[in-house]
C-alpha cells in the first residue's frame, strides 16, 4: 500500500522518493509554483509553492513526502504570501505585458491572474536591462527574467551546452550568457534546444513569431493555470494505483 499525507484535509497517496509537490499534482491537487518543472530536479527558489507542514512553512517542491504529514496550502494566509511574492517579481523586473510576446502563455502572469493580483503594490524598480538581439533566430529579453534557472538547467543537463548561467548575488543577481562576448550569437544555442522551451516567462523567445496566437486562444486564456498545471503533471495512472493496492 502506498503511504498518504493530508493536503488541506484531503488524503494524498505518494510513492517513496516523491516530493509533496509531485505527489499532490499526480493526485490532482494543484499547489501554485513557478520554478518547479516536472522534468527537472526541484530548484526551490521562487517559494510560490510554500505550504505549511505540521505548522511550519516550507517549499513543497523540495519537501520529501512523508506519511502522516498535515499540510495546508489553499489558505488565505498562504495565498496572501504568494500574492506578495508575485508582486515583488513584477516590481523587480520590467513586465509590460501588452508588449510581451509571452503574454497569455506566461506562468507569472497566469499566477497573478489566479491569485487576483491587481497591482504590484511596491515601487517599481524599472531596471535598465538591454536586450540581446545578436542571435539570428533567438531574442533574449532580460527585463522579464525571474531567475528560476530552468534555462540554465535545461541547457546544461539536457542540451549539454551550458549556454546560460546566473551571476551576482541578491538584487544584483542576473542571467548571463556563457560566451566570451556575453552575446547569444557567440553560443551554439539552437531553436530546437530544450533551453528554448522551458522559460516560464518571456525571456528566451524565437524571432519572427510575434503575437501569432490570437487573444482568446492562448494557453491561459482558455483555462486558469491551476487547471492547466494539473493536465501537464505526470499523473498516477489508475492502473498503477490499482496494482500498488493489490500488492498490499
Amino acid at each position, binding site marked *: 500500500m502506498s503511504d498518504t499525507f493530508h493536503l488541506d484535509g484531503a488524503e494524498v497517496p505518494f510513492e517513496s522518493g516523491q516530493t509533496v509537490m509531485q505527489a499532490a499534482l499526480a493526485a490532482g491537487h494543484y499547489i501554485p509554483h513557478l520554478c518547479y518543472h516536472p522534468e527537472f530536479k526541484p530548484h526551490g527558489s521562487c517559494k510560490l509553492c510554500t505550504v505549511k507542514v505540521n505548522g511550519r512553512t516550507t517549499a513543497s517542491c523540495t519537501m520529501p513526502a512523508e506519511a502522516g504529514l498535515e499540510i495546508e496550502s489553499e489558505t488565505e494566509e498562504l495565498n496572501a504570501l504568494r500574492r506578495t511574492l508575485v508582486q515583488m517579481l513584477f516590481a523587480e523586473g520590467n513586465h*509590460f505585458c501588452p508588449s510581451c510576446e509571452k503574454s497569455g502563455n506566461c506562468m507569472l502572469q497566469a499566477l497573478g*491572474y*489566479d491569485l487576483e493580483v491587481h*497591482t504590484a*503594490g511596491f*515601487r517599481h524598480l*524599472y531596471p535598465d536591462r538591454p536586450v540581446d538581439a545578436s542571435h539570428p533566430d533567438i531574442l533574449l529579453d532580460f527585463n522579464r527574467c525571474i531567475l528560476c534557472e530552468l534555462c540554465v538547467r535545461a541547457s546544461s543537463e539536457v542540451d549539454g551546452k551550458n549556454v546560460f548561467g546566473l551571476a551576482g548575488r541578491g538584487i544584483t543577481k542576473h542571467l548571463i550568457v556563457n560566451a566570451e562576448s556575453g552575446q547569444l550569437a557567440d553560443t551554439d544555442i539552437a531553436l530546437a534546444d530544450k533551453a528554448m522551451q522551458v522559460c516560464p516567462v518571456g525571456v528566451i523567445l524565437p524571432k519572427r513569431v510575434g503575437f501569432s496566437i490570437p*487573444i482568446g486562444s492562448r494557453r491561459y486564456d482558455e483555462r486558469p493555470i491551476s487547471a492547466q498545471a494539473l493536465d501537464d503533471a505526470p499523473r498516477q495512472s489508475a492502473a498503477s494505483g490499482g496494482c500498488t493496492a493489490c500488492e498490499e
Partner: protein
Amino acid sequence: MSKKLRIATTSLAGCFGCHMSFLDIDERLLALLELVEFDRSPITDIKHCGPCDIGLIEGGICNAENVHVLREFRKNCKILIAIGSCAITGGLPAQRNHLDLGSCLTEVYLTEPGLAHGHIPNDPELPLPLDKVHPLHEVVKIDYFIPGCPPSGDAIWKFLTDLIAGKTPELGHGLIKYD
C-alpha cells in the same frame, strides 16, 4: 430612492483607451446612470473634480500637471481607482524610464531624421515632464486597481457593480488580464 453616487474620471499619462473601454459597457451605461452621476469626466467636460464617491483614473504620472490632477482627485474622492496598465504600472509611457529624459527629448525633437530645424518645446504653458513616469500608487493612496490594457468593458462593469453593491470587487478568470 437613495442619493446617486457621484463619479469622476480622467486620463493622465494614458491614451483614453480605458475610457473607450468604459464606453464598451454599451447599453449598461444607462443602467449605471440610474445609480451614478458624473462629476469631472470627458463625458461632462467639467474641468475640476468636486466631492465624489468614486474617482476613476486612467494613465500614470508623467508630468507636473498629472500630479496636481491626481492630488485633486485624491482630495475629493472617497474611493480612488487606478484603471489600466499605465495607471497601475506606468505602462507604455514608463518604457522611457531607463533612458535619460534629456536624451529622449533631444532624440525626439532634434536628432531624428527630418527634424533639422526642430526645437524642444519650451512654452511656459506646457507642464514640465517628470524625470521618470510613475504609477499612481507611488504618489497617492489608491484604493482599488482594475488591470488590463485596457480592461474589457465587462471587467469594468463587474468591478463597478461589485463596488456599488458594497462587495469586494473580484474579476476572476477571463476578466482579469494585464494585456
